[in-house]
């Protein structure tokens, strides 16, 4: 049952639950930064908006705090669950903390099924550790990263005061 085991390791209950009932899904009225990201392989997409507190030009990134996050999107269970868990994980954190979490999550994705070695890092990721199984499937890593890419981009925009809506091509649905 090696491969069935592989499937269960990949699609952990936590992932299935978040995919079915995602957190922070539903766009808000206003935002400080917005990003629209697409996985070019499958057309999966996420639009993600952030609201910050403390972002003034030249402000240190630990003084900038993610005050609100909202997203909408479509995609596979991995991508949807990943945005959902990420949203819970980063809410209320500083830009510096979020950058560190993103690096840790990237390291998990690059681990080829080996997982993280530092227990502190594991603890920091919390539920998002459930994505360890994804690192065994290189083609799926992009799915798990879609939300993280959107968050990084939206934060970068918000930090420079770019609150313009993300551009998408005409006719895109």
């Amino acid at each position, binding site marked *: 049952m090696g*491969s069935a085991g592989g*499937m269960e390791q990949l*699609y952990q209950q936590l992932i*299935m639950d978040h995919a079915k009932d995602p957190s922070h899904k539903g766009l808000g009225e206003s935002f400080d930064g917005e990003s629209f990201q697409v996985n070019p*392989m*499958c*057309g999966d997409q996420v639009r993600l908006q952030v609201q910050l507190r403390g972002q003034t030009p030249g402000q240190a990134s630990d003084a900038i705090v993610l005050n609100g996050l909202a997203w909408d999107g479509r*995609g596979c269970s991995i*991508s949807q669950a990943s945005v959902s868990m990420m949203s819970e994980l980063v809410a209320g954190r500083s830009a510096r903390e979020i950058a560190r979490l993103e690096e840790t999550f990237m390291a998990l994705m690059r681990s080829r099924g080996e997982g993280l070695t530092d227990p502190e890092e594991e603890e920091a990721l919390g539920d998002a550790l459930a994505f360890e199984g994804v690192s065994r499937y290189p083609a*799926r890593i992009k799915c798990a990263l879609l939300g993280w890419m959107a968050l990084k981009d939206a934060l970068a925009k918000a930090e420079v005061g770019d609150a313009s809506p993300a551009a998408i091509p005409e006719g895109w649905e």
Partner: protein
Amino acid sequence: MTDLPPRVAHDGGARLGCDEVARLRADFPVLGRCVRDGKPLIYLDSAATTQRPRSVIDAVREFDLGSYAAVHRGAHALAEEATLAFEGARTSVAAFLGAEPGELVVTTGTTGAINTAAFAIESAGVGVGDLIVVTEAEHHSNLVPWQRLASRTGAELAWIPVGEDGRLDLGVVDDLAARRPRVVAVTGASNVTGACTDLAALGGVDWGPRAIRVLDAAQMPGHGVVCFRDLGFDLAAVSAHKMYGPTGVGALLGSQSVLEQLGPAWTGGSMVEMVTMTQATFQPPPQRFEAGTQPVSQMVGWAAAVRYLTAIGMDRIAAREAELTARLLEGVGGVAGVRVLGPLDTRDRSGVVSLDVSGVHPHDVGQFLDSLGIAVRVGHHCAQPVHRALGVHASTRVSLGLYSTKAEVDAVVKALAQVRPFFGVA
């Protein structure tokens, strides 16, 4: 170098049956391997790329080990041998596709061929007021080059829509033809719906004197008889790797009279006659469109692939794949929550069957099938608009090849029935 394989070498059209397919599978060593914790590979992704028989791999290897050199330059023995092999391969492949050797422009593949066509037609003149007609069913490689051509030149882009059954809705054709388009670019067989275009209807339309009719034939010659001169199109694009040959090579087929009208696309070595510091003159077709060092080994491999296919017989392969397609369509038709995105019958239909599994994303479907050793394609298959037209964003695509078996078709149907229960979808 006119040592052509006969077009029909098999024994009078006897059915390509299971025993023979079992023997043919031995020519494809990769089909014997296991994946994902020892699951025997079930390869149902031949629309993405076909596996290569040993004879193709051996032909490339033998040529590379003994005769490789750059072609059309140098007068040494090896260059002569390589040039003869390259031109011999051109002749074989052209004959297989129903074209003259001079009608076959070597490209990097279908994408290369269509981009070459777009730039070559632009060189011959495209501008404001010109109309480019495509279809909603196109692979991005037969859509985006024309979008770019339109945006570079100010030409207008219009398209033939796809109906609910995945077939082209030809109702608009007469109106589009009346507008005398400069380019009409259509797929011969969709890489998503499997629908085969009614080429007689489209090619036979009077599109006017300036129209260049371009066919994306990528999904055709690996699965049935293709005779370029009977297609009613001016240009056609094909890839070797979708007909059991190597990657990195394909062709733009073009009638002599049309190729003559077109200007160069890529420029550089090999395609010129006289070059000064400010000017150049160009070779006649097909060399006019073959700038740079050519994919010699790949052409040798492609010729080996058409020898392999000829020995089996394309009509027999087509009949075999139609049988399996019917079995697949019937099988998936019985799986709750699975919808076929394309024609439900085998008439004018290839063995490309894309599916929507209700409530489960194609990536998740593919992952489940993969865990059982089944290789299918998931995503939009480089054709986002046709998915949008059919009301989905992506799909799970099962596609057949000459080596596909009934047992493989049955295995994917059985596995598809387990997908929704696994993901907890009622």
